[in-house]
């Protein structure tokens, strides 16, 4: 199967500053992919290159098998660009219908398509408003609606829930999850808990470099076709340091990281002991300890940052 996105030695420099440094990765179509990294890591630059807004300084980027910016990609990519605004003089429906017409819809069906995506974003009631009459969150949702118009095969969402209220952020997560059967989403966000719920893989950029491409709650996609390494995350009701040694003594456990005094990440070999969670529960009962949560795997935050902090 050919890759959805292929980047080889991709570099982008703005003057002396390198926004992307020799990035290499391949992504295949499927579940949503998270793009994470601190501010200035190069996330928006990567999106801009993939969308054809800016050209790479060197290297190659291909989407759906074609170089970015190719005419073959017209209408096949949807994008929520950061800080892009619609024309303040025309109504939302006029503008979205026009964009749909550019994608090949007729005069009538373009309106139907615009209304469909506005409805997905729960914005049907503002279709005849101008963009200046909308709040920041509504503007963002209109921009997401335009990204979903037509039948894009890849949708790039640059911080789609930043500045949205919890209810609308949740709606967007739901839409992404529902539509991800037909469309591959790449979502950048600083909200790791949100990405963890939506996405199956994470692409981690830092200072323009690709740190990892890995499965969320899993292991490095490229390097370990699973050596059996799994994680359990244990969160206790109260702080307890002494339990670490006892967990370490359980069969197949080879490491316990203490995240906080009441939270531990247990590294174990699942092939040797597929029922470690049950043994852990027994141990907690024996010690008289109350737990708040036991989770298979580790959080995205732990995946990305615990290893670095050591």
């Amino acid at each position, binding site marked *: 199967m050919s890759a959805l996105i292929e980047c080889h030695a991709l570099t982008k420099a703005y003057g002396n500053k390198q926004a992307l440094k020799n990035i290499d990765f391949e992504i295949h179509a499927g579940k949503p992919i998270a793009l994470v990294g601190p501010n200035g890591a190069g996330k928006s630059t990567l999106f*801009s290159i993939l*969308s*054809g*807004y*800016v*050209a790479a300084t060197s290297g190659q980027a291909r989407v759906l098998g074609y170089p970015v910016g190719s*005419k073959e990609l*017209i*209408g096949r*990519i*949807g*994008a929520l*660009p950061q*800080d*892009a*605004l*619609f*024309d303040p*003089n*025309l109504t939302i429906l*006029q503008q979205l219908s*026009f*964009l749909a*017409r*550019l*994608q*090949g819809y*007729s005069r009538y069906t373009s309106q139907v398509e615009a209304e469909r995506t506005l409805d997905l974003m729960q914005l049907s009631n503002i279709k005849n408003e101008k963009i200046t009459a909308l709040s920041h969150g509504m503007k963002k949702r209109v*921009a997401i609606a*335009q990204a979903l118009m037509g039948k894009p095969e890849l949708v790039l969402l640059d911080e789609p829930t930043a500045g949205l209220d919890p209810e609308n952020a949740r709606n967007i997560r739901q839409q992404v999850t529902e539509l991800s059967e037909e469309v591959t989403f790449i979502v950048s966000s600083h909200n790791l808990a949100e990405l963890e719920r939506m996405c199956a893989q994470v692409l981690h950029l830092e200072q323009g470099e690709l740190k990892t491409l890995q499965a969320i709650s899993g292991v490095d996609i490229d390097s370990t076709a699973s050596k059996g390494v799994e994680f359990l995350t244990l969160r206790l009701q109260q702080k307890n340091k002494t339990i670490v040694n006892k967990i370490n003594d359980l069969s197949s456990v080879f490491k316990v990281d203490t995240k906080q005094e009441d939270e531990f990440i247990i590294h174990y070999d699942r092939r040797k002991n597929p029922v470690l969670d049950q043994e852990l529960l027994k141990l907690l009962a024996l010690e008289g300890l109350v737990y708040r949560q036991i989770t298979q795997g580790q959080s995205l935050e732990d995946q990305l940052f615990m290893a670095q902090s050591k």
Partner: protein
Amino acid sequence: MNKINISHPLWLIAMQELVASFASKRGLFVTIVFILIWTLLLFYPIRFSAEAMHNPDSASLMLSLLGLAGLEPLKSWLLAEFAVYWVVALYLFPMFSLLIAADQMISERNRGGLRFLTLRCSRGQIYFGRFMGHLLIQAILLGITLIITYFLLLVSNPQYWLDGLKIVPLIFLNILIVICPFVALMSLLSVVMNSVRMATLMAVVILSLASFMVSYLAGSLPLLDVLNYWIPGVQLAQMAQSTPDVAFLSLWSPLMQTMGFLLVGYMVFRKQEI
């Protein structure tokens, strides 16, 4: 015969530009100014000049004034209204296009709106579609003023109705081609400049100083005199002294300039970060 494909992105963008231009405050303001100026011109200078040219008592004064202005050939025009309209439109429409066609790309690029378009059509379609849209706006305004002038002719000299009908398309085509390089210059400037005001100002500076610059350069290297042909409107004085059918012969330079400006602008826009 080839039909215009009304779903082609180029045409859709041109039509959208038409809608957006008249919907914007700036577009409305410039259009209102245009209507006011042309109403005044049509109902006062053009009508009075035409009446004077038709009236044997005042004709001698009018004809000597035309002679002083270097527009003696206008004396031979049968249709006085169109004779005066011709001279006024030749100079006024290009100036007007500098104002109305200045924002083909700038505001939208500044607010990031072009990013919604480039995923749905090529940059060439955006760039040339915008040019077409602005030319269409000018064509509509030009058509309206020509129709009003034709009505003035019908009111004052109805016997010339057929001659009027014959000359209207000739004038329309001539002026439209004259406008082309000015709109194309604004297409180019709207790609390279970051504000609408600066783009208009730059156009005025270019048009005002270009002939001085070329004369100065040609003083050192006479070959550079050829650069004069790249100054929009360089042929206007010659056209003003001709009738529209003869003026067609001067239209190769605006056509060449249009292609040149559009090409340079497109080359820049194709690679531009948006």
